[in-house]
């Protein structure tokens, strides 16, 4: 069954869209990532124009994170004050990101920057996570106790210290704000929620306990992607609400299943799975940049 998308101006199979949404929703619930890093490239692949894919991806992330964050609130796994600090940084970053996105689209280099960001960020984060998770598993097997979680690094020497009770942290506002800004920029340029970079940053840089990390990142992602959707809708009219709806219907169901499944799996197993997935996407996109493309030319409606 085909459906014609009013903004993207293409006709796509309805069940393909529902399936895509479902798969991404499953990941969202499972890992606490928006899943945007998968949905945006997949939308390119099925023929949705890049600008529409990025903007609509952001809208889809809103729905799956509402669903996820509600489940996390029930479990009291959201650190709201920390979420708000990350959010303030995120909104600033998102505004910057939209500006860069529109500039790069004009220059015709948006594809390159998006792909390079995917390769660099996903690749390095994926490897880091994999290494860390494998090390942790080996420690568990040997029965050796983990060391102190709070190793004091430069992060803990900065001013403006605030207490975050749910996370059990007493740290400066600067690192979470910066993490928020970077995630916001990525959200706008790559059409992702940014969970894949925020979750590791929260664990390794801010030293937050794993149990509040997913809920808090979803909380931040929810508001940043809502803001990004709004900006895309206003500045380049590229949000396709019908496309978003199809992805959302599949996505919210997937997210619920994923979050149940996530509660049953061990944190270390989750991390290894996520790391492998992230590395796979990075390798695929990296190869696309290195191998000579079949078609060297590409078309863009509109003038230079």
């Amino acid at each position, binding site marked *: 069954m085909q459906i014609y998308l*009013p903004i993207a101006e293409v*006709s796509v199979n309805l069940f393909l869209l529902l399936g895509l949404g479902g798969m991404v929703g499953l990941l969202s619930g499972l890992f606490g990532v928006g899943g945007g890093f998968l949905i945006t490239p997949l939308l390119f692949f099925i023929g949705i124009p890049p600008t529409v894919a990025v903007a609509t991806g952001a809208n889809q992330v809103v729905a799956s994170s509402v*669903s996820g964050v509600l489940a996390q609130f029930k479990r009291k796994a959201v650190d709201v004050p920390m979420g708000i600090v990350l959010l303030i940084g995120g909104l600033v970053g998102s505004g910057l990101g939209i500006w860069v996105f529109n500039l790069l689209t004009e220059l*015709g280099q948006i594809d390159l920057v998006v792909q390079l960001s995917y390769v660099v960020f996903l690749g390095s984060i994926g490897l880091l996570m994999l290494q860390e998770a494998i090390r942790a598993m080996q420690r568990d097997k040997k029965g050796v106790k983990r060391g102190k979680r709070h190793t004091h690094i430069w992060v803990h020497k900065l001013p403006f210290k605030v207490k975050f009770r749910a996370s059990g942290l007493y740290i400066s506002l600067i690192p979470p704000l910066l993490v928020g800004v970077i995630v916001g920029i990525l959200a706008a340029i790559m059409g992702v929620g940014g969970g894949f970079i925020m979750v590791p940053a929260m664990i390794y840089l801010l030293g937050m306990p794993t149990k509040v990390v997913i809920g808090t990142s979803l909380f931040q992602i929810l508001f940043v992607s809502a803001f990004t959707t*709004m900006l895309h809708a206003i500045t380049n009219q590229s949000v396709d*609400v019908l496309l978003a709806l199809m992805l959302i219907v599949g996505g919210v169901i997937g997210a619920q299943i994923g979050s149940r499944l996530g509660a049953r799996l061990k944190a270390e197993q989750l991390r290894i799975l996520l790391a492998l997935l992230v590395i796979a996407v990075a390798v695929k996109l990296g190869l696309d940049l290195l191998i000579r493309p079949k078609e060297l030319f590409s078309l*863009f*409606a*509109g003038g230079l």
Partner: protein
Amino acid sequence: MRRFALLIAAALAVATPTRAEEVVAGLSQDNIGITASFDGSEILIYGAVKRYAPEPATGPLEIIVTLEGPVGPVTIRRKSREMGIWVNTDAVEVGAAPSFYAVATSGPMHLILDPVIDVRERISIPLAVRAFAGPIEVSDVRPFTEALLRIRKDEGLYQLDEGAVHIVEGTLFRADFELPANLTEGDYKTRIFLLRDGNVIDQHRAAIYVRKVGLERWLFALSRDYAPIYGALSLALAVFSGWAAAAVFRLIRS
């Protein structure tokens, strides 16, 4: 079929004689509505040749039918290898390229159409794409225009179908066009050329209006004219679905 015959009869009755041979034609539909379930469309262009004298003894009667979508500028970019990775480096802008262009003929194009006439009427696909705009920064634009034609041909947006116009008894003809699912809205121009010995004897033009209708029309207009409201609507929908899903699953669980 009876309607078809009646239409032709009616068309024949109103036309006034000016040339020895004239083309009268009709469209199976002159309005195409793009709805949510739009999955491409078919257009039948049919007609007849009207004569005031016996059929001339010159070359055989040939017909070319073209269908052209809204015209707009297109930027063509080329990738090349820079520091080991493939990057968009050069770009050429074509000032006016149709978003859709289909040509159907009754015989091989090079045999039935004089190249001079082709240039004047811009009938063949490469000629329908015209006018370079802006500064040309590359030494050779040919690979770029070839790429434009190749990519659009592969997407089914540019079609050349030689022999697709069927002429019956030297008077009746029909041509079928397949419109793809990724159609842009706008006015589509159809042109019918009546040819003998490579020259145009008569031509006929008609328009097909392709429009989004219903929900599609409403959403598209809202997104352009009231972008903030449209954005808020998209968000509300997303938040509601997210919440509803969580609520439903909680009910199922308890």
